[in-house]
């Protein structure tokens, strides 16, 4: 008899403490000895996770009104420019925004410090209006002192990602790390068989409204992420062979844990933010059991040359090869290293499991499934460019 489970049934078991919750790595190992049908019978939920640099991240803040108030048009936090082009005392601090005099410090660091409960200097200016007469302010804020502060990341948790290497004769400093000349190293940035969107490649259980682990708090998937692409070529396991779907996620920064969010800077690229995301996948049927059982060797990705501005494709590699420490590119053995922390991803998958087992975290069915048949456009240049 084939297994069918509903979200309600699983949540009931979670509440009673009788649900079987495994991490995606555990279930992948199990697949060496068990069929998807057997796994589906045994397992209720599988936890997936990732902890990697995700530039498309940031936080909305409402500072509260000083008396009298001002229309905050130019806003900085510890000297890092935030976006003030919304209502009077709202702003958005983006992860990659940099301090003009100290570009090694930026939005990612400010966000991490806010999570840590540190004091941050807010400076703001406005032109002065009849309703908001003040023109300038300098004060100190913390996450507790502000009204609301929530992380709203437009593009996180990429489903698969490129391998970056460099055939040029000079070092390339990139968001994929320091790439040494002439195919001397290659970097990759997903957690492979533990990665959320690789464990539910058709996004059957991840959509608008899915409750997730976001940087140590409970957050939500709120929309398909930017550059959401469901048209990438897939391998025989149905896994996209390069970066495909993405998630827009949201969560209360006041409840986040500094262990799972980190400001960072990539040399001569700039500031970014390491974001920790965990997503539980309910094993509703045999098909999902087969999906979560995916192994590193069954997940392929594409190797690109970041030494050439057009980033031409150089070949492909699977995650078992990448994790072995070397891959072969153009007949050469190339040293590999990750940028996304497997150790941290495992911590997140465990943490999420403990929330589920304690009945502190309930599963939500998507309010709306994500679109299919989407592609990503480039940008046509009609004016000037350099």
């Amino acid at each position: 008899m084939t297994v069918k489970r509903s979200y309600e049934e699983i949540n009931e078991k979670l509440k009673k403490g009788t649900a079987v919750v495994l991490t995606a790595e555990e279930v992948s190992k199990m697949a060496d000895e068990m069929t998807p049908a057997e796994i589906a019978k045994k397992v209720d939920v599988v936890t997936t996770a990732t902890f990697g640099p995700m530039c498309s991240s940031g936080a909305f803040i409402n500072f509260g009104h000083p008396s009298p108030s001002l229309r905050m048009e130019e806003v900085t936090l510890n000297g890092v420019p935030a976006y003030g082009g919304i209502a009077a005392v709202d702003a958005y601090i983006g992860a990659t925004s940099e301090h003009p005099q100290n570009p090694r410090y930026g939005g990612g660091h400010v966000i991490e410090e806010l999570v840590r409960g540190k004091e941050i200097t807010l400076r703001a200016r406005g032109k002065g209006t009849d309703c908001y007469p003040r023109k300038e302010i300098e004060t100190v804020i913390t996450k507790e002192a502000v009204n609301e502060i929530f992380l709203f990341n437009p593009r996180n948790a990429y489903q698969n990602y490129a391998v970056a290497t460099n055939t040029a004769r000079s070092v390339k400093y990139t968001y994929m790390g320091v790439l040494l000349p002439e195919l001397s190293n290659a970097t990759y940035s997903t957690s492979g068989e533990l990665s959320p969107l690789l464990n539910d490649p058709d996004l059957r259980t991840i959509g608008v409204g899915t409750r997730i682990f976001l940087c140590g708090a409970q957050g939500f998937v709120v929309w398909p992420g930017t550059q959401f692409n469901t048209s990438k070529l897939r391998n025989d396991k149905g896994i996209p062979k390069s970066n495909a779907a993405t998630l827009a996620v949201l969560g209360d920064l006041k409840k986040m844990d500094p262990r799972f969010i980190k400001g960072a800077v990539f040399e001569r690229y700039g500031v970014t933010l390491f974001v920790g995301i965990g997503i539980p996948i309910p094993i509703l049927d045999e098909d999902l059991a087969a999906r979560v059982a995916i192994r590193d060797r069954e997940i392929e990705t594409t190797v690109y040359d970041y030494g050439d501005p057009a980033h031409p494709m150089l070949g492909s590699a699977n995650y078992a090869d990448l994790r072995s420490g070397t891959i072969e590119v153009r007949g050469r053995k190339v040293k590999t290293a990750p940028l996304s922390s497997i150790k941290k991803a495992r911590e997140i998958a465990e943490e999420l499991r403990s929330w589920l087992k304690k009945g502190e975290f309930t599963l939500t069915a998507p309010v709306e499934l994500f679109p299919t048949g989407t592609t990503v456009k480039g940008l046509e240049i009609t004016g000037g460019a350099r």
Partner: protein
Amino acid sequence: MKKRFVLNFALDAADEPITYVLIKEYDLKLNILKAAISPEKGGELLVELDGDDKNLSEGLDYLRGRGVGVDAVDKKMLFRREECIHCGACVATCFAGALTIGAPDWELKFDAEKCVACEMCLKSCPLKLFDLRFG
């Protein structure tokens, strides 16, 4: 025994061919991994010395006697390990094999003995947890 040292000397002390003496008189295999000379700091040499223990310690005494600062490299590389997130970005650039990451625990390991102080990790660590102190 093979060990790495940072040698510090004043610019006007460079009149004696110290590397020649180390090879010729103390039978040390000497490999210069890095050399830097600046008016402010004087000269800095990162060397790997290989020889028997007695010759090595006498060779180092000779250097000290010439006013050359001698510091073992493993004391020089600072790594704020407790803040490490084990991403692996530094491993990509560490060709001495001092920084490694992999199965089963995927925890970053730093073996100071293998470090050649090339300083690539100072650039590649996204959290800037490495620092190198010369002299």
